[in-house]
C-alpha cells in the first residue's frame, strides 16, 4: 500500500513552496496531487513529459492536478512506480476529510497530516468570520505543524491548539517531513532523527469504539509514550483523545471523523482489539 501524506493550510501558508522542495529533494519517486500547476515552479529541464493533468519529472516523480474527485486521482496513480503520495489540501479543506482518502481508498494508507501556517497571518485568520473555524480545524487536526515566518505571538496561539509545532528553520531535510518517525520524535519533544527507537502506528476503524476499551489497551501497553487521535464512540459521540505519560484525556470534538489514533511507542504493541 502506498502511504499518503496530507499537506494542509490556508491560502498563503506556503504549501506550494514546500511541495516544490519535496519534488526537488525526493530520494525516491513520489507523486504529488496539487490544486494548480500554475503556482508550482518547476524548472523546465526537470520536466520529462507533460500531459494535460500529469507532469512527469526526470527524477521519477509525478505531479498530478487534482480533479474534483480525489479518489479518481489516486486511482490513476495505481501501477505507477512511486513510493509515496502527497496530497495538497485546498485552502478551505479540513485535513481530516482529505486524510480519509488515505484511510479509505483501496491500495493506499495514511501516513499523516502536516499543516502549514504563516506566522504573520495566522492570528487574524483564526478570528476571520468566514474561515476562522476552518483554519482552526486545519491546525487542530494535523499531526504536525510547520510554522513559517513565526512571531512569538503566533507560536503561543498555535500551541494552544496543537503542541506539535516546529519552525521552518528546524527543518534541515524536507523529505524527513514525510517520515512517520519525524512525527514520532517530534511528538515527544526531542529533535528529529534522534531516538530512532520510537515507532508510530496508526489505528483506524469505521465502527464505533468504546472509550473503556481504549483505556484498557493503553494500560496493557505501558510502552506507549503518546497517543492522539479522533474517536467515534457509540451514540454518535466524537471525541479527541490525547494521552501523555501523565494521563489520558477525552474531550468532545465537533469534527465528525472516523476513528484514527496515532500511537507512539517503543518495542512492540499488542494487536488492536477494539
Amino acid at each position, binding site marked *: 500500500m502506498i502511504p499518503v501524506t496530507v499537506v494542509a493550510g490556508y491560502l498563503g501558508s506556503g504549501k506550494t513552496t514546500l511541495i516544490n522542495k519535496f519534488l526537488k529533494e525526493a530520494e525516491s519517486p513520489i507523486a504529488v496531487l496539487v490544486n494548480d500547476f500554475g503556482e508550482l515552479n518547476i524548472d523546465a529541464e526537470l520536466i520529462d513529459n507533460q500531459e494535460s493533468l500529469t507532469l512527469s519529472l526526470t527524477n521519477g516523480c509525478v505531479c498530478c492536478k487534482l480533479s474534483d474527485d480525489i479518489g479518481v486521482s489516486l486511482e490513476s496513480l495505481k501501477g505507477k512506480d512511486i513510493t509515496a503520495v502527497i496530497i495538497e489540501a485546498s485552502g478551505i479543506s479540513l485535513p481530516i476529510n482529505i486524510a480519509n482518502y488515505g484511510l479509505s481508498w*483501496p491500495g493506499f494508507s495514511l501516513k499523516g497530516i502536516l499543516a502549514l501556517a504563516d506566522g504573520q497571518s495566522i492570528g487574524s485568520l483564526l478570528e476571520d468570520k468566514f474561515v476562522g473555524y476552518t483554519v482552526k480545524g486545519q491546525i487542530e487536526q494535523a499531526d504536525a505543524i510547520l510554522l513559517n515566518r513565526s512571531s512569538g505571538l503566533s507560536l503561543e496561539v498555535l500551541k494552544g491548539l496543537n503542541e506539535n509545532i516546529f519552525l521552518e528553520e528546524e527543518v534541515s531535510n524536507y523529505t524527513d517531513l514525510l517520515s512517520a518517525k519525524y512525527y514520532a520524535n517530534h511528538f515527544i519533544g526531542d529533535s528529529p532523527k534522534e531516538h530512532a527507537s520510537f515507532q508510530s502506528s496508526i489505528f483506524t476503524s469505521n465502527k464505533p469504539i468504546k472509550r473503556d476499551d481504549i483505556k484498557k489497551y493503553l494500560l496493557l501497553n505501558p510502552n506507549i509514550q503518546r497517543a492522539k487521535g479522533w474517536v467515534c464512540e457509540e451514540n454518535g459521540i466524537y471525541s479527541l483523545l490525547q494521552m501523555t505519560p501523565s494521563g489520558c484525556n477525552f474531550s468532545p470534538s465537533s469534527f465528525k471523523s472516523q476513528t484514527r489514533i496515532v500511537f507512539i511507542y517503543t518495542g512492540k504493541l499488542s494487536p488492536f482489539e477494539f
Partner: protein
Amino acid sequence: MITVFPAKSIITMNASMPSAEAVAVRDGKIIETGTLESLQPWLSKHDHEIDEQFKNSFIVPGLIDPHLHPSMAAVLLPTYFITAMEWKMPWGTTPATRSPTEYDERLKEALSKPTHGELFITWGHHNLWHGPISRSRLNSIDSKTPIVVWNRSFHEVCMNDAALELLEIKQEDVENATQIDFEKGRFYEIGLGYAIQKLNPYILAPEVFKEGLLKLKEVVHFGGQTTIADMAVGLFDFEAELNTQAALYENEDTPFRVELIAHATVMQKGNSVEQAEELIAKLPERNSHRLNFGKRVKLFTDGAFFSQVAQLMEPGYIDGHHGEWLSTPEQFEDNARVFWNKGYAIHVHCTGDLGLELAVDTLEKMQDERPRFNHGFTIEHFGLSTPEQIFRLSKLGANISANAYYVHELSDIYSNDSVGFERASSMARVGTSFREGITTTLHSDFTMAPAQPLMSMWVAVNRVNEKGNVMCEEERITPQQGLEAITINAARVLGLDHEIGSIRAGKKADFTVLQENPLEIDPLKIKDIEIKATVFEGKVFNIKTQ
C-alpha cells in the same frame, strides 16, 4: 392564421390586465388577450380559428422552473424507484414502500420483469423504513442478477455478489478501506466514490444518459413547465451534457426551452477565471431555438443544505459541527469581481446564513467598486437567512430564487436534529423577501425536490411540513405572490421577462392549462390541481392523466 383560445379564465400575471377570457396566438406569439369581442379588430381582418379545447379550463403563463439539474436527473431517472414516499411520475406513480418485507417483495417483483439491463440499479432505500441492507440479503433475493441498491441520500450503495463480480471489485483490493464493508457489500462516503467510479461506465453510458434525459423531458412536461434552467451545465461532462440536450431537446416535439447557465469552476479547469470568462462569453454562439446561454454564470459559496454542510452563523448547528465552503472567500470574491465587471448576472448557490453573508458582503463590495443597476445577482436556494440580510439584499438590488421545498421536507427534522425550531421553521424566508420588494422566484433543484412548480408554490403559500404542521405562518406568501414566483418572477430572474412569464401582446405563446383556478382554490389543494396541457410557442401538448 390566428388561433384563439377561449378559457374559463386567463390569469395573465400582467398587472395592467390581470384576467381575460380569450387569447389570440399567431406564429407562436401572443397577438392580444381580452374577450372575443375585444379581439374583433384583429379577427375581422385576419384568418382565424377558435380553438375551444380549453374553454372549461384556466390558462396561466407557462410555468418556469429557474433552477434544476438535467444531468443529475438523467442519472437518477433510469434507475428503478423503490421509495418510502410516493413519487408521482408521468409513466406511473411509485407507491410508498414502508417495511422491509414490502421492500424485498417490490425488489423481487422488479427483478422478475425482463426489462432491466445487465446491471439492475434501484434507488430510494432508507434504513428507517426498509431495514439494514446487505450483500447476503440481496443474494437471498437474487444471486444471479447483478443488483445495486442506491440509498435515498445518494451517500451509500450496497451490492450483491453478482454485482461485485461484474464490476470486478475484489476483497484483496478493498480490505484496508475503512468506508467499504466488503462483507456486507456496502460502500459509503469515500468508499462510495470508489464504487461510483466502477459504476460510471453503466450509469453514464451514453444510451443510459439519453434515456434519463428523455425521461426528464416527460417529467418537465408533466409538471406543466414550458421553460427550465439548467443551473450549472457540466456537473459531469460539459460537452456530453450540452450535445445530448441539443440532440434530444432541439426538435418540434419538445414542449419547453432550456436556459443554460455556465458553471464558472467547470469552465475554469485549472485556468484563470479571466480565461473561463472568455470561454463563457463565447457560449451563446452555440445557442439554438430551444437552448440558450445568456450573460449569466453560476458561483457557489457553501455546501449542500440536505447534507447539513451549509455554513451557519452563530449559534450554528446543535451538535456543534460546521458546514463547508466550496471555495475560499478570497477566490469567491475574485471570481465574482471578474464576472461583475464584465456585466454578468451572477447566480450564487448559498444555503446557510453564513454562506449568504459571504454573498451579501461580496455584492456590497462590488456595488462600492463599480455600481450597477438591474444586475441580476441572484441568491440561489436561500435555506437559512436573517431578516437583516434580506434588507441588505433589497438595498443592493439582488434577486432571490428559493427552494421552498426545504420547509416541507426538512423543517421538522431540522427543528429536532439540526438547528432548532426558530431557524428551521423560518428556512426559505420568502414572506420577508416579498415584503422587502425583492424579485423572488421558487425552484425545485430537481432531483432535490419534485420538478413541479405547483408543488413549490403550494409549499411557499402554505408552509406545511411533512408532519402536517404549518411552519412560520408569517413567512407564507399569498397565492398571487406564489403564482408570480413561478411565472413572471422566474422569467425576470432568468432575464427572459421580455419574452415569457406573463400573457400579454407580443410575448411568446407559452401557457399552462389548469383544471382549477390556483388563485381561488383552497390553497391546500394547489399541488393537486390537474394540469391538462401546456402550450409551447402556440403548439398544444396534452398531458395524459394517469
